[in-house]
């Protein structure tokens, strides 16, 4: 068995799975249930300014017969009295001393408020602080949340206030509602944050009700932009994570990965692209805390299979494999091959290639089953047929290099090799 214990900025947890700051971490009742289920840690739902929530709060995007591919919320930070939250945090730490307890914060926009809040939270015995610079709704209008994270200077200022008093690790959570997460990331690292976490939710409209004509979620005939999360945002989160993991400055601090993590595989992908641990929210909200079992077991089995003994053995391993387009090897070429024994004659590869790609698959009529074959000289190796094929490993991409040596775009141009020649 691999060792999946995690140490994030000295905050130890039995596994790298934390529950993200969100409704599941809003109170003692939920957090104790999460710890009993086996979660490694929690980031307690954001404490700070005084708020009032509305009803309803969530909406979702279903796809292909599956519920909640994407999830959207317009809920604000914790709407419970601060004193109760602090008391419950202390109680949870006492009952589960081996679990990570990080508290998310979003104070009013002045130094005094931040200092007072940090003091009170540290008194609970919490192991770390996460600064919520990402909430995209409700708080931004008051100059908080994403309004801070979207402006590197303001973010820097707030982090400096925090670092004046904080005695425990400080993680700054970044908003994805920016052109690039790197400027704010660099700015807060310069200001002294110990770690980063990303991404927070992405502003969204999940859909419009075609009867009422009002978008979701519905609040008395109106709606607002909400924060989007769930499997739909994972690819965007991975991209943003990679930019932070590749930046010279921001890569110096540990990163907590967030964004659509539902399975152990998702978690491994985040860690391969530079996250030291991961935070989960939507998957727990739709399938409850019991998913932690497979998250841990799947991670463990994969590590055993690959021979990794500790998380550090593979964290960040894929970061160098994402490069710039002009560094890609132009002489690499692969073409599709259809395994006729596995083919079920659905024709999806054919029609995708025919209508929207390179007409590289031929159709030999049969009744009722047609035969589909790749026209090798036409195939550009785009992967489309393989992606749409419903049968695993029926279509494989076979390597057919143009030439043995590596040649990139810059060199290709230098040599005056032919362009637009397909």
């Amino acid at each position, binding site marked *: 068995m691999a060792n999946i214990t995690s140490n994030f900025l000295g905050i130890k947890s039995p596994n790298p799975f934390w529950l993200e700051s969100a409704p599941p971490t809003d109170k003692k009742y939920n957090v104790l249930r999460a710890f009993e289920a086996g979660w490694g840690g929690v980031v307690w739902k954001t404490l700070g300014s005084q708020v009032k929530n509305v009803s309803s709060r969530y909406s979702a995007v279903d796809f*292909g*017969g*599956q519920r909640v591919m994407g999830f959207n919320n317009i809920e604000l930070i914790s709407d419970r009295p601060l004193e109760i939250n602090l008391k419950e945090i202390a109680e949870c730490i006492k009952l589960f001393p081996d679990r990570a307890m990080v508290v998310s914060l979003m104070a009013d926009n002045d130094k005094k408020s931040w200092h007072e809040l940090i003091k009170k939270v540290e008194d609970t015995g919490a192991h770390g602080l996460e600064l919520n610079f990402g909430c995209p709704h409700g708080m931004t209008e008051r100059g908080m949340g994403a309004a801070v994270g979207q402006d590197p200077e303001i973010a820097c200022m707030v982090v400096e206030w925090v670092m004046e008093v904080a005695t425990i690790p400080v993680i700054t959570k970044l908003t994805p509602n920016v052109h690039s997460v790197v400027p704010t990331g660099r700015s807060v690292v310069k200001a002294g944050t110990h770690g980063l976490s990303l991404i927070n939710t992405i502003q969204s409209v999940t859909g419009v009700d075609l009867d009422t004509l009002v978008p979701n979620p519905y609040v008395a005939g109106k709606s607002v932009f909400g924060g989007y999360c769930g499997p739909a945002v994972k690819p965007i989160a991975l991209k943003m994570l990679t930019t932070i993991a590749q930046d010279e400055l921001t890569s110096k601090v540990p990163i907590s990965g967030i964004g659509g993590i539902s399975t152990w595989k998702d978690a491994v992908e985040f860690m391969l692209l530079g996250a030291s641990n991961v935070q989960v929210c939507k998957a727990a909200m739709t399938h409850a805390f019991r998913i932690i079992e497979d998250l841990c077991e799947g991670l463990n089995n994969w590590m055993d299979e690959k021979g990794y003994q500790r998380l550090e053995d593979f964290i960040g391993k894929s970061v160098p494999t994402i490069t710039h387009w002009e560094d890609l090897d132009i002489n690499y070429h692969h073409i599709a091959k259809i395994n006729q024994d596995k083919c*079920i*004659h*659905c*024709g*999806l590869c*054919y*029609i995708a290639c025919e209508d929207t790609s390179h007409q590289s698959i031929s*159709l030999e009529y049969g*009744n*009722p*089953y*047609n035969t589909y074959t790749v026209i090798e000289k036409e195939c550009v190796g785009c992967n489309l047929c393989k992606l749409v094929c*419903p*049968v695993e490993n029926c279509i494989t991409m076979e390597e057919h290099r143009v030439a043995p040596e590596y040649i990139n775009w810059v060199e290709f141009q230098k040599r005056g090799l032919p362009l637009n020649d397909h």
Partner: protein
Amino acid sequence: MRTRRFRRVTQRNLLTLLFSAVKKSKAMAIAPNKLTTQQYDNNFADIHPPFENKTAAQVEASRCLFCYDAPCTKSCPTHIDVPKFIKQIVTHNVKGSAHTIFSSNIMGAGCSKVCPVEKLCEGSCVFNLLDEPPIPIAKLQRYSTEIAMDNNWQLFQRKMSTGKKVAVVGAGPAGLSCAHVLSREGVDVTIYEKESKGGGLMTYGIAAYKVTPQFCEDEVNYITGIGGIDIRYNQELGKDISLEELQAGYDAVYLGIGVGIARELDIPGEELEGVVDAIRFIYELRTKGFPAVPVGDKVAVIGMGMTAIDAATQAKRLGAKEVTMLYRRTETEMPCTRHELDIAMLDGCEIIWLAAPKEIKGNGKAEQLICSKMKLGEPDASGRRSPVETGETFTLEVDMVIKAAGQKPFDKLVQSMNLENKNGKIVIDENCSTNLKGVFAGGDDVNGGKEVVDAVQAGKDGAAAILKNTFHAKTQSK
């Protein structure tokens, strides 16, 4: 799919057995009213129930791969664009889905209940190649068409009347399908039907647990809802109306008169009381109501086609103690599908392969069926190995014999009208035209008896031919 259906059939079979245990005991005889109302209700309930709700339909519809040049569509005689109509269920466009189905097959609702899909669309679903259950195409088709019929969505706009008139003989699947296509193109259609209800064999000749008389009536009304189709009931060709009259009064005539009673056995004793024709038997069951139909205690059914299965299962479900099906060849050559055979076997019907009726004995009433034991010889014209007598016989104690060895065309009627024919089956050319000017034909009366879905396609072809050859118009229908 087979496993799931199998289970469903098993459950129903258990019901049947349960109820047969408590039925009234009577001396061995042909008699009506053998079961209680509840027993009849249970035995004749929908054998392929619909989806419980929208979610259930969505789950199955979402499995569909949306194949290109889809094998299911190719295997449907009416070429319904199956992936399209299923995709439309997924996108919550049920109206569009129903339109997709009906534009290829106006009896798409009925076909979803009676088609032997295991040898048509579902049989060729690509999931079979993965050893996965195929998409439940029929059930999904039923889902969309049932909603359309319940809401009486009239999805086709009839063109302005052109003043052209066509007479259709027979309000069965071929006639209705032909009439609908013609009406869409603005032709005024009059259908002459010898029965008091439309639907043809759909209404009168199919097992009651597949379609109810009410459904058949609703379907006919839904089809004629487009307007421009006038059905005149109780009008029999050759009796109440003549072909000459129709030829004189209309621009064209389409004959969709179907086939008649079951083929005769041509054996001694066929005239005995208790020897009945399967079509007549099912017809009575469909018209008189279950309790009124007499059924024997020991029933022999001759044949192994779909009608034979229907007759055997219906006899059992009416309260027959023993039902034995006899077929002169083996399972390899049988015309019914394996799925249909399963239904009969799970209903408790006995099957005897390689057995042909030789003589029926009895004192006024059928009492014994003498059968020849057969063996398989050389392939015949159909390519199937032909049955040959071994010389051995065996005897079955019976009180009822149901003849279901294929149906017989209306040969006398066809010949009396001077229609070119082959053993009573009307001969048509590639334009669906008979040897008589302006007289077209299609469906069972031409092919000798196939599925409902084949007749629907024949009706479409006939309408297209009439439009093209008589009216020089084009049809949008495939």
